[in-house]
């Protein structure tokens, strides 16, 4: 099937791609001299990379790997708490990206959102099968709410804004969303684990998500 996907829109804007590639590389080189971890791709560039991958472009695949591997691996690691399993998930995700890049639909979210969803779902599936969910639940209660993210994040330019936005969420809202997002718990399970009424959990998730959406609008 992936052969059909390879033929997805492969003639899309080849000349633009060639012209853009040179300026992109120059831009990337300049950016790298300042900070190796800086992400120079916009989501538009990332969409173009996915289209090239759908056409079997290995260079584009390697670039997307360099771009996303760190954040996707960190996400898998956070869910699974196991380096070996996180590596397996990362490998499965990138092989899936290689096979299914043609299925990516920009209307459903940015490329990073798509790849993060693939990673979380694969990691959460493993977590469920290994029945190790208790680890996250244990660490989710007060410690999770109080913990602040540390170290370099995906994009230095977005670093402060995103961290600040997440940090500014009230602890109970952040905990509820993280249990779903990283822990794969449903609203009922979150309600049971946090020993709070279901209505309270729903309201916390809604308020937190809406606040995050409003804060990060146009900044991701």
């Amino acid at each position, binding site marked *: 099937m992936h*052969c*059909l996907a390879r*033929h997805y829109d492969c003639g899309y804007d080849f000349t633009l791609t060639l012209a853009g590639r040179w300026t992109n590389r120059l831009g990337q080189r300049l950016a790298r001299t300042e900070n190796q*971890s800086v992400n120079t791709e916009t989501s538009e560039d990332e969409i173009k990379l996915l289209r090239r991958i759908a056409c079997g472009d*290995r260079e584009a*695949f390697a670039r997307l*790997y360099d771009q996303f*591997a*760190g*954040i996707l*691996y*960190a*996400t898998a*690691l956070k869910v699974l708490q196991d380096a070996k399993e996180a*590596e397996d998930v*990362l*490998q499965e995700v*990138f092989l899936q990206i*290689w096979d299914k890049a043609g299925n990516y639909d920009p*209307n*459903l*979210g*940015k490329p*990073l*959102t798509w790849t*993060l*969803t693939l990673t*979380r779902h694969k990691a959460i599936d493993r977590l469920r099968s290994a029945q190790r969910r208790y680890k996250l639940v244990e660490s989710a209660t007060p410690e999770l709410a109080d913990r602040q*993210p*540390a*170290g*370099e*994040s*995906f*994009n230095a330019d*977005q670093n402060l804004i*995103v961290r600040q*936005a*997440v940090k500014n969420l009230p602890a109970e809202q952040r905990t*509820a*969303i993280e249990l*779903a*997002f990283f822990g*794969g*718990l*449903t*609203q*009922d399970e*979150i309600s049971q684990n946090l020993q709070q009424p279901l209505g309270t959990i*729903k*309201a916390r*998730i*809604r308020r937190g*998500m*809406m606040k*995050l*959406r409003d804060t*990060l*609008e146009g900044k*991701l």
Partner: protein
Amino acid sequence: MMDERLQENACLYAADAMSPQENRAFELELQGNAELQNLVRELRDAASGFALAEKTVAPPLRLKTKILARIEGEHKRTESFSLLNLVNQLRSAWLPWAVAGGFAVLVAVQFVQAQALRRQANAQALEAGGLRQQAADLNSAVTNLSTQIAALEKKDDFSQMRIAMLSSLLDNSPKALAVSLWDNDKQSGVLVVQNLAPAPTDKDYQLWVINDKYPAPVNAGVFSVDEKGNVRFTFKPDMPMTSVDKFAVTVERKGGVPKAEGKVALVGG
């Protein structure tokens, strides 16, 4: 302004906090609601902020090599590995033999590379042939379907008839099944239900018709099933329908409600 329940469901959906059953019911509401789809997209992008705020962890370098090797193809990798072994063995041989061997290796490398390229070309030719065959098969299937549709359209009885299969989302009626026959000309239809567990005494099943033109599902009446879970129900939606995208049955208060709020029992289109 979007109502609070929809907004809340969009948030739960984007945060992955819904059960699979709740997800399916919400996806039904998502269809044909551009405002809701937009909100879900924005919320999903915003939720990625949780991952972005985390410390990035570089995966082991070997992993990238491993993944790139996987996509390069197993056969090519195996050949390269064998060549490496051959070169390592020759390294320990006597010098003249090594020189001669080196020349042989060079020739062998070129030969193997040529073979690999030839194999690659053959594989690509095969793949292209396969794709051409797939395209021909698809064309043939499309032609067949078009012929069948044209034949059906010629029959007056079915010209305006829309047939939809509804499947169960209820845990207590996994085998429940329904077929809806919708006549666009008459603006009415018949729903035939089988194996659906009777609704609780204070509840009724309510049929909804979904169409892009209306922001919410349109009421098509309430019904109950006999003790075997079967019923044949003639319905007429409250609003005129130019076409129908989907049908859904929900469990609602006795006598029905103006706007769907209960659990989705059957859905399909």
